[in-house]
């Protein structure tokens, strides 16, 4: 057994960086702060790879597959005798895989930001927040218990809030950050309730105990039920609600497109590669509980995932802000991962969906981070987010162009690129379990290829726009991460995930299912061709198509009016019909009652004070009447 306790440094280093950069950043100056933050990440990335290597290849397996290892654990807060919040490090295949994803992408983004954020006000602050985010995300990934996960879940939420609102003087960024935090916070409410219900019935927060097939969560499902579903199922649905919020699934997806107001490296790191897949990770983490104790919840996950992927893909086809297209694409791809988990079984080949989901998570992180960073380079060159302002850029940005193309090919599922392998596994898993969802995903695959290449062609081909000044290729700090990630997007498909990351830790055999793969490739190529026909040269074809489907286009362009619906609910219902009435009620009814008591007292006293008239004879009259009354009382009645 290898001692992994050094892995706690994964959390300590970025936390230290956060404090150093946050408290002393303005003294260190931008250059030093940036380098310090990046070198911290370099160490973390190195550590992650060492951990991954020694976990996957350094430990003897003895045919038992990969075991979960608690590398570090301290009690952070004792709640009840058997219920305590621990902070620790859990290493198992999925957490180790996530470590690689998070640290690699974060490292790339750090390097990229050195160039991208150059000269920005608050450069040190940016790196401090990035460190905070890395700390939170790593803490979430290695969490050995659900409460630590919740803690870091909240922390990634706040880092996301801070980074989206990085340009805090821009009202749209402020609004977006607020929206992101509140929507996810609402979802986290469900997560917390889920945790509480789960802990009430199982008396544990510990993942290993929870996912143990003979443990309290799974073996004890015969307990209380509510509306036909067992309490464990309910709790898992609530927990999933947190995942829906964080992973921007329908109907809590509305924050993700707006979150693109943040700096582009942030979008790449948080809103594409790492934080938004936390929901998928959460479900994967609790996967045995879902699959064995609450299959109904798993169905919900599958359908929510499938719907979100279709929904987002349709919207993505109509958007013109390149970052928003990518945001909807992210939502769509996460829908894929959710679907894969939803149709998966447990153990061996049944767990194909689980493996596929993790596989896709990994490859998606590579190519989506690449897409965002590429988009950042383009925005950096053109100073606009809108593809209508772009065109013919392939001449000016050769490196960006090639890397972007690789990412597009990968996401479209063109054979031999990473996305092809992982997407194929997902489709195969869907095909084995649910034909309907499988059909939906085929459609989404076509749409994905279409909108990605729509983006690609309108940016790099199409008619050449007149630019104010000639766009030029990004500096080296920005292109190196692009190249590294492009290698990842091209090659990671060859990693044998079925040997490493599986639902039960045991390797299983899986082959490329050509019966599924060939049609999906054809559909993808079809999408690319359509995009090529419509966007590679400037023509009025796109407008004609749009007007042919006018109503549908309008709805999709306006994101099916989800934002308006939310605005209606929050502004109209919550603000106008709850908060303001509550405030009014408080001022006028509750406080009014208190004031009324005071008023009644005062009025009474004003009445009573009239008795003291200052007329001495009145007093005398009352006095004498009193005496006479008492005399009569004493003499005749009381006697």
């Amino acid at each position, binding site marked *: 057994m290898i001692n992994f306790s050094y892995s706690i440094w994964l959390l300590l280093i970025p936390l230290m960086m956060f404090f150093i950069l946050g408290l002393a950043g303005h003294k260190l100056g931008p250059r030093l702060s940036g380098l310090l933050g990046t070198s911290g990440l370099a160490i973390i990335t190195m550590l992650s790879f060492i951990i991954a290597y020694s976990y996957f290849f350094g430990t003897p397996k003895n045919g038992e597959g990969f075991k979960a290892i608690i590398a570090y654990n301290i009690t952070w807060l004792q709640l009840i005798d058997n219920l305590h919040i621990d902070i620790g490090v859990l290493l198992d295949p999925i957490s180790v895989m996530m470590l690689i994803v998070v640290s690699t992408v974060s490292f790339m983004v750090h390097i990229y930001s050195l160039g991208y954020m150059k000269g920005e006000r608050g450069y040190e602050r940016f790196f401090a927040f990035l460190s905070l985010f890395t700390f939170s995300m790593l803490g979430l990934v290695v969490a050995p218990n659900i409460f630590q996960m919740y803690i870091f879940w909240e922390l990634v939420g706040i880092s996301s809030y801070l980074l989206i609102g990085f340009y805090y003087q821009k009202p749209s960024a402020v609004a977006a950050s607020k929206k992101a935090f509140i929507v996810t916070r609402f979802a986290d409410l469900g997560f917390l309730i889920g945790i509480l219900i789960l802990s009430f019935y199982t008396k544990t927060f510990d993942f290993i105990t929870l996912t143990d097939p003979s443990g309290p969560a799974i073996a004890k499902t015969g307990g209380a039920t509510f509306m036909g579903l067992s309490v464990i199922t309910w709790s898992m649905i609530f927990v999933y609600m947190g995942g829906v919020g964080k992973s921007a699934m329908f109907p809590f997806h509305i924050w993700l497109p707006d979150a693109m107001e943040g700096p582009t490296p942030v979008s790449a790191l948080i809103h594409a590669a790492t934080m938004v897949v936390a929901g998928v990770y959460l479900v994967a983490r609790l996967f045995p509980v879902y699959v064995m104790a609450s299959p109904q919840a798993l169905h919900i996950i599958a359908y929510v995932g499938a719907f979100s992927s279709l929904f987002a893909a349709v919207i993505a086809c109509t958007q013109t802000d390149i970052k928003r297209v990518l945001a909807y694409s992210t939502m769509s791809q996460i829908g894929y991962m959710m679907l894969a988990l939803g149709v998966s079984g447990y153990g061996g080949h049944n767990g194909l969906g689980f493996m596929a989901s993790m596989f896709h998570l990994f490859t998606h992180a590579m190519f989506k981070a690449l897409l965002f960073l590429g988009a950042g380079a383009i925005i950096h060159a053109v100073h606009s987010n809108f593809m209508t302002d772009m065109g013919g850029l392939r001449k000016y940005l050769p490196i960006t162009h090639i890397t972007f193309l690789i990412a597009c090919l990968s996401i479209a599922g063109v054979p031999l690129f990473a996305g092809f392998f992982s997407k194929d596994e997902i489709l195969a898993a869907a095909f084995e379990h649910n034909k309907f969802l499988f059909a939906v995903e085929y459609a989404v695959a076509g749409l994905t290829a279409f909108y990605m290449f729509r983006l690609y062609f309108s940016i790099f081909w199409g008619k050449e726009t007149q630019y104010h000044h000639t766009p030029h290729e990004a500096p080296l700090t920005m292109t190196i991460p692009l190249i590294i990630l492009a290698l990842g997007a091209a090659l990671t498909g060859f990693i044998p995930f079925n040997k490493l990351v599986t639902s039960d830790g045991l390797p299983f055999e899986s082959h490329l299912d050509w019966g599924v793969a060939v049609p999906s490739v054809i559909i993808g190529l079809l999408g690319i061709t359509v995009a090529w026909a419509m966007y590679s040269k400037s023509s009025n074809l796109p407008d004609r198509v749009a007007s042919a489907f006018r109503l549908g286009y309008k709805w999709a362009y306006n994101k099916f009016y989800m934002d308006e619906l939310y605005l209606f609910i929050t502004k109209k219902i919550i603000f106008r019909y709850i908060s303001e009435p509550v405030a009014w009620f408080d001022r006028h009814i509750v406080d009014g009652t208190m004031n009324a008591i005071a008023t009644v007292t005062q009025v009474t006293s004003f009445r009573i004070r009239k008795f*003291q*008239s*200052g007329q001495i*004879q009145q007093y005398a009259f009352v006095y004498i009447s009193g005496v006479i009354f008492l005399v009569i009382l004493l003499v005749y009645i009381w006697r």
Partner: protein
Amino acid sequence: MNTGIPIQYFLILATIMFFTGIYGFLTRRNLITILMSTELILNSVNINFMAFNRYLFPHKLDGMFFSLFIIAVAAAEAAVAISIIINIYRRFTTINVEDVDEMKY
């Protein structure tokens, strides 16, 4: 000695004086008249003291002395009262008791 005027006569007289005083005290508006009414009340009490002293304890003089005290106190009181009335007159240019009602609320 005890065969003279029955005590009831004195008492009736005192009662009439007393209530006349009370009535005057309550109804008169002039402060001087009110003071006079007060004197009537005090004197009615004096009559009672002396009558009871004479009829009930003929060999003691406590009641008589008490009356003397009351007369002395009443004189002092009248002096004080009149000086108050004069001051009131200076302040309000009236000695109508109804107009002197500052001491309220």
